[in-house]
């Protein structure tokens, strides 16, 4: 057990190492550097060279990477070139919670809407209700999040004035307001998952409902609601968890766009801005963090899956 854990940790570390090297090389190969950006229209060679040297960007790539790695593993994530902000603070204390809140809220929304929609369309298979629910699911999968976000902002933020259009209020400081502020972004991010979850739920539920144990439950006098929501859904949860788990790591993809559109200072925004600024230290920290999230999510899903499916549990 412990061996397995160590192997897992080792493998994760290796993957993350690979990821950091790749992002470093990418950003170094890309034309442009943070110094040109910092100087902008006030560019002059002297200031440029001075800043370039000061930031250590004149050293050989290998040296730059090595010193970054050395610091990183000892817990010093360095400072942003442009903002001089402590990267650990920026990434872990500031950006990560935003993205996690957004993702969690979006996931809850997606489950709350996606599962009933999927169940409805499975139970009312081939009726207009199925068509509507499938339609919602399919369209949720189809709108680019940046466009959906902008439309939501204009309709529900500007037009109807129901929700704030941008900004982040920490839900751990003020839960209601935090959720209120995050609602439109969460819907934007959730749209894709609503579709996904509805479709998986529908397909899995249809499959599960065909099993004899459902018939058997009804033969014991169980009511339809209980049969569907307890007996069947308990089994639908397994494929659902797998799917969500696989896609959750990719939630950052949607988060990038959502965070840009709604001006949320999350990980996606941080990495996007840093990529455009060629701040390899920030990008590496961000990508490592998202890689780590990816790995953690997978581990959690594995655990969850074992917990959900008794057949995978080992007899003690």
């Amino acid at each position, binding site marked *: 057990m412990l061996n397995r854990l160590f192997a897992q940790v080792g493998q994760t570390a290796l993957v993350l190492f690979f990821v950091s090297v790749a992002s470093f090389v990418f950003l170094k190969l890309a034309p442009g550097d943070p110094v040109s950006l910092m100087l902008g229209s006030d*560019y*002059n060679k002297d200031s440029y060279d001075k800043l370039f040297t000061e930031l250590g960007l004149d050293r050989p790539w290998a040296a730059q990477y090595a010193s970054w790695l050395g610091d990183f593993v000892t817990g010093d994530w360095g400072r942003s070139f442009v903002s*001089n902000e402590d990267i650990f603070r920026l990434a872990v204390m500031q950006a990560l919670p935003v993205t996690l809140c957004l993702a969690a809220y979006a996931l809850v929304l997606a489950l709350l809407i996606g599962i009933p929609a999927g169940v409805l369309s499975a139970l009312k298979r081939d009726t207009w209700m199925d068509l509507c629910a499938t339609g919602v699911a399919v369209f949720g999968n189809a709108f680019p999040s940046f466009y959906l976000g902008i439309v939501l902002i204009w309709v529900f933020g500007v037009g109807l004035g129901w929700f704030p259009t941008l900004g982040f209020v920490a839900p751990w400081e003020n839960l209601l307001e935090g959720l209120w502020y995050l609602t439109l972004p969460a819907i934007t991010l959730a749209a894709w998952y609503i579709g996904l979850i509805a479709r998986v739920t529908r397909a899995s539920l249809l499959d599960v409902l065909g099993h004899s144990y459902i018939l058997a439950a009804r033969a014991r006098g169980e009511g339809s609601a209980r049969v569907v929501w307890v007996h069947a859904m308990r089994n639908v949860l397994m494929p659902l968890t797998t799917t969500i788990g696989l896609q959750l790591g990719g939630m950052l993809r949607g988060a990038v766009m959502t965070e840009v559109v709604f001006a949320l200072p999350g990980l996606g925004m941080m990495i996007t801005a840093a990529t455009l600024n060629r701040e390899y230290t920030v990008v590496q920290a961000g990508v490592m963090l998202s890689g780590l999230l990816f790995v953690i999510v997978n581990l959690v899903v594995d655990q969850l899956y074992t917990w959900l499916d008794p057949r995978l549990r080992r007899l003690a």
Partner: protein
Amino acid sequence: MSKIDHRSLLAAKLAKDFSRGRRALLGAGAAAGALGLAGIGSTALVSDAHAQGQPVKRGGTIRLGWIDALDTLDPHFTSSLGSIKVINNVFNGLLKVTWDGKKVGFEPDLAEKWDAVSDRVHVFRLRKGVKFHNGDPLNAEAVKWSVERVRDPANKSQHAYHFEDLTSVDVVDEFTVRLTFSKPYAFLPVALTGSTGRAGTIVCRSAIEKLGRDYGRNPVGTGPFKFVSWRENDSIVLERNPDYFEKGLPYLDRVEIRLIREPSSGVAALLAGQVDGLSLVPFQFVPELRKSPNIALYGQVEGNYSYVGMNNRKGPFMDVNLRRAVAHAIDRDVIVKQGYFGEAIPAFTPISPPMTPFYDVNIAKSSRGHRLDLKKAMEFRKKAADQSEVTPVYIVAEGFTGSGGSGTRISQLLGPMLAKIGVKPKVELSDRAAWLKRRNTGDFDMFDEAWIADLDPHETITPEWSTGRQWNFVGYSNPEFDKLVAEASDTLDTKRRIVLYNRAVDVLLDDAPLAMLAHRKVFKAFTRRVRGFQYIPVDLLNLHTVSLG
């Protein structure tokens, strides 16, 4: 050229500006002449809203959407107007820029009195009792340290060139400081305030020595607002400085600046009432905001010009005739209408309207400068060495026009225009970092950009087009032009300067390392509950007179 000339020039200028300030307070004609170069009271210019007799509501938090990017809040090292707009609320300079609706003026800010002892020696008497936000006193030492910080080559401030002719900064007494220059320096008021004050802003020594590079993230100044926090990609918060030297100001308790990357989200937030104002409005959104009755737009043609730069060092545009052909093939009315949604005027020369008296209000009727003339363009094109179709590399970066990036609109509009003279640009899009790198290293045939927030012909053409200067990205070199602008910058007589600059501009535009495009308006937008905003056409957003209705 003489001492007298110099002094009278400055005297006249200051007296006029100051008297206007006074007039607002004391009534017309109050001792304008008597003031002369002598001291100015520490009374503030009163804002329009209050002058109109409306009751001012104190307190409250203003929320502003900041669309333009910020780099650092250290005034001596910032390159971003997005930062400058914040810095101007946290810091003060020796002088400040004002605007009376017609022309730009310079007024003492931290200085209470400014004496030009000679055309090379300037003495500033400081206000007494001014304190930095951390409690440090503002005195002559602080000013000296601050100016030398900019000038010190070791610091490599990108604004050091403003003080390249400064020979010494001396502390006369605790509240008097003397600047000595190696030659007459007509540009001084602009140097101290121009680029909206990057060189002449007074910073806090002890804070910088304590914080080092972090000072840019934790600025300590003397201004109406104290810096509170800056959350990367999220927000900057300022709060009222109760000890601000302009008594009774500022009115607001708190300023919350939301950093917004996506401009359409910023505009939506303004319309939804989520923010009270926007630091900048890209042209695309101006029609939308003009329609809204709840929004007040502030924007006029400012000290700027947009242009197409053409590489003189390599590629097809080494050929002056091809450059001239391009300069005459551009329909600036289309650029204004389509590129800037009508919120600009065609630029014939780099001298923009706020640069009175250098700007020729009748320029359109003259024959000077770049203007659409296809016949002329074709003639130049025929003289060009390369008669086949030319495909210059045109570098562009994404972004809304007027929001930091120059965007891709101009390149799209130029395509069909240049096609008429057999020039088919190959547009290469990249992100801003790569674009800047290519521009700075001359890796392009053409690009478009704008020089913005300029107050004087000197800063709008000299470092940009003189041989070997830092912003001469196209590698333009003409000794005649160099000579003319050098002479102009050492000249104090305005009439003479006008002549010199006109000649310099004519030389420049005939060589056409650039093709003129437009002088653009720069917009700020507020909801109607924001009162007392004083618009200054150098992209400033000063909040000390602002209150919430």
